[in-house]
């Protein structure tokens, strides 16, 4: 815990250098990003989707630090830049905890930062990242919660409450977020994991919605976590800072949610990698987070399983692991839908690239993270089993690179027109909360394919 406190951030948010949107983008962000990418000689190599160049990872870190210190974070409500000094950043990095405690009771987890090629398995958060129909939300949540490798769950999101659309900032959101929190709490009890670390609730977009569900009896507990986003790119607003102030007081874990956009303001893979690392520094200092959810994604495909994306996902995790104790869950966004061979290949490639690079896992969002009911825990199960396997066998980045390259060659030609797959209700026996036999067979075949490629599953 650094000397930088929430009230320092509030003060800088109101008294920092005045800066309008265009000035921030054109005079600060764009030129500084171009400068650091060039200065630190960061270049994408498509032949190495999982690079093993330590110096490159460290240069990305250095570029991100320089960029972050120069640009700061723009509060779009106050038009002020929140600027952090080098000494403050170094203090926050020095004081970052060796371990974070999350969850409760038998489900308590001691979450520690991983190193590159670490033999300790990843911390795994199972999450579909999409909305589900209200009438199957409990069963869908139970399906995720029951996964044995889940150290935490970010449950399915509600789009309707008592049959009515949930609209952010309205009473329907208040009703919906409370219903969502109650259903999740029921799900963990029914599965017999009442203390499981929940990152919740995704239905609450507004600050008031997040405050409404903080309740240690029926809602989101102080042993759970919340996500607070950084706006695109390097921006925040008062509503997000309200959430930070509330979570700090309530005592739950803060997860900083960051998704640098490939093809966006940061440009290609190089700038996007630098930006995503810089986003983690925003989390560490401005949001004073406990962990980061990292989901850099491709602007056109809204996924991060392509070759350029895995390159930058891997390097972001390596840069962080080699230079900090920041916890980062690498969040998989995929092109194919559930019930397809492609989704298993995407999920496992992303898991391998992330885990050998020192990252933890937050997985899996199929079908561009877009379509209701199109996600199941089975894709996440394979990703997390693969992540644990490659860590346990001590897989090097060089070996991982070969496996990921082989997987990529099997699916990268289909990224633009990926198969849609099937919704949860067709992939699972909903009421019995278990995968359909055909889908289990497909999962087993995917696991066998990975075994043939060199992944040594313990079971």
């Amino acid at each position, binding site marked *: 815990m650094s000397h930088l406190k929430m009230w320092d951030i509030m003060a800088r948010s109101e008294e920092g250098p005045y800066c309008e949107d265009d000035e921030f*983008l*054109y005079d600060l962000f*764009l030129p500084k*990003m*171009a400068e650091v990418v060039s200065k630190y000689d960061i270049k994408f190599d498509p032949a190495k989707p999982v690079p093993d160049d330590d110096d490159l990872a460290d240069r990305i870190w250095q570029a991100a630090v320089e960029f972050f210190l120069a640009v700061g974070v723009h509060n*779009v409500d106050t038009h002020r830049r929140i600027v952090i000094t080098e000494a403050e950043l170094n203090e926050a990095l020095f004081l970052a905890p060796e371990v974070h405690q999350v969850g409760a009771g038998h489900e308590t987890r001691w979450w520690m930062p991983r190193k590159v090629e670490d033999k300790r398995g990843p911390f795994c958060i199972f999450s579909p990242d999409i*909305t589900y129909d209200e009438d199957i939300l409990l069963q869908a949540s139970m399906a995720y919660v029951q996964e044995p490798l889940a150290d935490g769950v970010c449950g399915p*999101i509600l*789009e309707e409450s008592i049959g009515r*659309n*949930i*609209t*952010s*900032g*309205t009473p329907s*959101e208040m009703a*919906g977020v409370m219903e969502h929190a109650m259903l999740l709490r029921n799900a963990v009890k029914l599965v017999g994991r009442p203390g499981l670390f929940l990152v919740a609730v995704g*239905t609450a*977009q*507004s600050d008031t919605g997040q405050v409404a569900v903080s309740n240690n009896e029926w809602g989101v507990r102080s042993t759970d976590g919340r996500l607070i986003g950084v*706006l*695109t*790119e390097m921006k925040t*607003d008062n*509503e997000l800072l309200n959430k930070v102030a509330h979570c700090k007081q309530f005592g739950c874990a803060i997860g900083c949610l960051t998704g640098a*956009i490939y*093809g*966006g*303001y*940061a*440009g*290609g893979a190089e700038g996007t990698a630098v930006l995503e690392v810089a986003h983690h520094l925003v989390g560490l200092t401005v949001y004073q987070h406990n962990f980061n959810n990292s989901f850099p994604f491709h*602007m*056109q495909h*809204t996924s991060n399983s392509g070759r350029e994306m895995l390159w930058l996902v891997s390097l972001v995790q390596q840069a962080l692991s080699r230079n900090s104790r920041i916890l980062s869950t690498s969040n998989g966004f995929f092109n194919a839908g559930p019930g397809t061979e492609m989704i298993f290949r995407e999920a496992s490639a992303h898991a391998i690239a992330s885990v050998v690079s020192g990252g933890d896992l937050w997985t899996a969002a199929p079908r561009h*993270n*877009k*379509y*209701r009911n199109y996600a199941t825990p089975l894709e996440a199960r394979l990703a997390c089993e693969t992540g644990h396997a490659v860590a346990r066998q001590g897989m090097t980045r060089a070996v991982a690179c070969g496996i990921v390259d082989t997987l990529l060659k099997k699916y990268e030609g289909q990224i633009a027109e990926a198969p849609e797959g099937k919704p949860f209700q067709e992939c699972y026996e909903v009421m019995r909360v278990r995968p359909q036999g055909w889908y289990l067979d497909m999962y087993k075949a995917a696991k066998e394919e990975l075994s043939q490629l060199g992944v040594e599953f313990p079971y």
Partner: protein
Amino acid sequence: MTTVEQLVQAVQDGKAPQAAELAGRAVEEGADAGAVVDSLGAAMRAVGDRFGTGEIFLPELMLAARAMQKAMEVLQPALLASASVAAKLGVIVVGTVKGDVHEIGKDIAITMLRASGFEVYDLGRDVNALDFVRRAEELGADIIGASALMTTTMPAQKELVDTLVAKGLRDKYHVILGGAPVTAEWVAEAGADSWGEDAAKSAKLLEQAMADKRAGAGR
């Protein structure tokens, strides 16, 4: 290389000060302002196409758009003085709906639409449905574009359409919806006219919509 060719190059390279200077020089040399604008429009469409295919990224697109804007500021007086004022494709008001603070998708769409020749008014983020309608009325808009990045803010897109219906204005505007979670099915459910699947497709789709509107009006 002629001055106009240099100007086109400066715009494509995103060099705003040079673009402004070269636009001024082109006017001094007696270039036809309308023809210069046509050349710049074609250049920006090419830049937009390269962005659409992933050949270039957003910084290049935005810097080119900014250079184009600077050149247009210089060309505007000459353009107004000449008889060759190019017809605008249409007037669009664009914003991110109430409760939603995400702007990048909207900003890309605005850049592409301006590059295509639309007159675009950016209403910003967290825009109330009624404010969309009021601004569209004030500005004489043809099209209303509403972006949402969250499933819980998508209902505000439907609220916009419902507000137009309630005010008896639904047929006056083409309503296009965009944003990551938005699908063609949602556009139909919300009662909007078209789906802004991505910025490049939106620009082409709206050009066609305006052409259809003009044809329908007998123009």
